């Protein structure tokens, strides 16, 4: 096993920037998810680490070894990384056992040892009985496991997952998620897991790297990403966070400060050392928005839409003070809000998004 160090990596395709100064350090044995909307550059990052693309600037190290830079490019076959491909990429002309044993055969490992290691790898993913089958005769989940066993058998220094659950149905996803987590616990492999699904990333990863438009937006634990987004992109991308304009009115004390937002005074969580400032932004979640009676602090507005979601409804709301600002929150049954009706809402908490310089 080995850690991975990505330093200031830049990749341009014909002048168009795909990755721009991305730096990520993955500790030995860590499970790191790379999360971002489609087209954000996360697949490019994976292909750079694997060696399928050459980078434009920066460098990548696996363990102590520099594998990619302007001057160095270790070919993929010499990097000792394992990849679980999105569509598994099992070779249809080989049996399951041949698929798994391929890397060992290429490395000229003796037949006896090869067979033993293939057997162990199959056992690891609970597929002992399927060694003689062809990939075409396996189900989606079984293929996924074979792909996992195949990438593990050569004892790679690093395992890359390329959206491995994107092609599976919802039920299978949940059980494969469990298997991945379990697998990581047992093997202690360093994992870089590419996904666009936040729930997957939250469930599996030690830390998440959020990428957008080729830039690293935030690199932190799932809890931090959720509760303390570093910027507006992360705030709005994760769990449909709402970003509201606010004025900071008191300096930070004990991790909190007072802000004025939509005519309401509110105490929000914030970073150390925040000072009063204008044009600040806060992030709040649907759960931090409640309906209140007329006398209580809050703000008035109009309900634009009420979408019933079974057991609860998603209410879209427009405050009078800022009509372009779409707010949304959940109301359990029985739902009394209807489109066009008036209501008064209040924020219960929030997070002060750090100023751009600080991010």
């Amino acid at each position, binding site marked *: 096993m080995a850690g991975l160090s990505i330093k200031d990596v830049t990749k341009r395709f014909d002048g168009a920037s795909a990755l721009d100064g991305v730096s990520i350090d993955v500790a030995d044995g860590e499970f790191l998810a790379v999360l971002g909307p489609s087209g954000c550059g996360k697949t490019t990052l994976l292909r750079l680490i694997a060696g399928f693309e050459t980078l434009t600037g920066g460098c990548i190290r696996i363990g102590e070894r520099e594998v990619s830079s302007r001057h*160095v490019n270790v070919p993929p076959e010499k990097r000792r990384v394992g990849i679980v491909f999105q569509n598994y990429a099992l070779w249809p002309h080989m049996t399951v056992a041949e698929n798994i044993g*391929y890397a060992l055969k290429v490395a000229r490992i003796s037949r006896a040892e090869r067979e033993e290691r293939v057997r162990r790898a199959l056992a690891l993913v609970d597929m002992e009985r399927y060694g003689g089958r062809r990939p075409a005769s396996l189900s989606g989940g079984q293929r996924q496991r074979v792909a996992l066993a195949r990438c593990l058998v050569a004892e790679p220094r690093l395992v890359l997952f390329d959206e491995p659950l994107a092609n599976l149905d919802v039920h299978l996803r949940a059980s494969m998620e469990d298997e991945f987590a379990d697998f990581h616990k047992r093997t202690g492999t360093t994992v870089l897991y590419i996904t666009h699904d936040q729930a997957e990333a939250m469930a599996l990863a030690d830390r998440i790297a959020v990428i957008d438009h080729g830039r690293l937006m935030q690199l932190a634990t799932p809890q931090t990403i959720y509760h303390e987004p570093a910027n507006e992109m992360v705030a709005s991308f994760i769990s449909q966070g709402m970003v509201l304009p606010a004025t900071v009115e008191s300096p930070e004390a004990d991790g909190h400060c007072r802000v004025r937002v939509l005519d309401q005074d509110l105490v929000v969580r914030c970073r150390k050392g925040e000072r009063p400032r204008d044009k600040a932004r806060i992030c709040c979640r649907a759960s931090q928005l409640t309906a209140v009676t007329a006398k209580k602090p809050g703000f008035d507005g109009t309900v634009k839409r009420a979408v019933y979601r079974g057991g609860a409804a998603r209410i879209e709301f427009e405050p009078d003070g800022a009509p372009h600002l779409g707010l949304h929150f959940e109301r359990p049954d029985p739902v009394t809000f209807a489109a066009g009706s008036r209501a008064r809402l209040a924020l219960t908490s929030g997070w002060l998004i750090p100023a751009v310089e600080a991010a």
Partner: protein
Amino acid sequence: MSVPRQERQGQDMALTVGIVAIIAVFSLLPMVRLLQEVVLPGGRFSLNVIHAGIVGSTTWRATWNTLCVGLGGTAFSLILGVAVALLVSLTDVRRRQAFVLCFVTPLMIAPQVTALAWLQLFGPSSPLLDLLGLAPPLGAPNPLYSPEGIVLLLGIQYAPLVFLIVRAGLRKLPRELVEAARSAGAGWFTVLRTVILPLMTPSIVGAAALTFVSCVGNFGIPAFLGIPANYLVLPTLIYQRLAGGGPAVLSEAAFLSVLIGVVAMVGIVLQDRISRRRDFRITATSLPAAPYSLGRWRHPVELGMWLLIVIILVLPLVGLVLTSLVRGYGVTLSADTATLENYRFILFEHAAARRAFVNSLYLSFGAAAFAVFAAIPLGYAIAWGKNRWIKVLNLAVELPYALPGVVLAIASLLLFLKPVPITGIHIYNTVWIILYAYLARFLVLAVRPAVSGYLQLDRALEEAAQVAGAGLFTRLRTIVFPLVAPAAIAGGLLIFMTALSELTVSALLWSSEAETIGVIIFAFEQGGDSKYAAAVSAIMVASTFLLMLLANLLAGKLPSGVLPWRD
């Protein structure tokens, strides 16, 4: 510890060098040599060759004739091919698979065999007409010895080509486009006229260009039908000049072959112009449109289609087989007079014919095997390569096939008239020069299916092997080859079939001891021994059929469209 970039480049370089070498030897070299002969004869710039060619009135008559039969043949095959493609693709006619197999077969049969079969059908000595009591008197001219006859046969020969291209286009036609037009109130003929045919313009124009090039470069049909009527086209003119003057007239022949190349290029450029005029791009692909129900016209249409098969395929082949059973010119064929003597003669007695069978088998097998092995790395570079010169590469592979075979034959003659430099090997007047020309000409027939095989393959399969530690050659051998081989081998089979009775190239390159089957058929027919020519041809048609059926066994593993006769 850092690894220099060069580490990965060793095998990459070897592959690149190999590909460049193949392209250079089999594609660029002959073309450059040909142009050099025309513009720089003897190493000095001169327009004498061009001037000498231009002033000759024979040249102009042959060029004019080439254009006439080229355009006529193209028009005829377009009408036939497009009509059949529309019927097969858009309506509910039955037994499509069998019909397509029969309709495409003329394309698989060598042109000179087609010509011979038709001559046997219509001539005064036609056993079939004789059986029916319709034969013209002996000595009467065969009606096919005319420009109209050439146009008719070119049309039948290449209608399948049009059919295949237009059919491929129709398969990609999304049904939404048809359904949108129908729900807008358009009837089927309006839809056909306003939506389907306009969208098929690129396919039809592309097919027209390819057919034109094939018609212009065809040697077998104008040789069998035109030479007796003294109606010369450029390929037959070159053949006559070379047959009469030998290597001395090579410069003139070179000029004439460049002229064919120019005529062919005009067709291709025109196609490019027309396709760019409007936007014909089809965005979405979806299920094909539901077949149009012919209703009570279904039976008559089906009957008509099979009648067409009888006329273009069954009758000529019956004529061919009957002729091969005849004892001699003018002898009426009956159960008593039928004989297998002609087969015995060509298979066991005629030394040159026996040699030709062996030569052609070796030549086509060699060309096919080489092409299969060359097509896999070439296809790899074309389909998966990242370099900018890929397009050039593709064009370079296509060129020798796009240009008429005569051009390549002349180029090969020029290249090898003198011994190969340094080695001193002399391949002129041997079977090796034919092999060289076959390799150059047919390589693309294996590269194209290989490329479509690569495009249907998920690149991640190779990348998975790469991260497993396999170097380029290991990946090519263990992953890429097994997956692409069926497509490339099917391409090889096409080459084998095409090369087996090839005539255009070998007619100019053959020598005593180095005959091919195509040449033997031609020689028998020219010498008046139609019965022997028919016997050889019948054997060739039978083996072609067998090979087609053999290839069908591979069909399950192939990307669709690799075997033209599979629907």
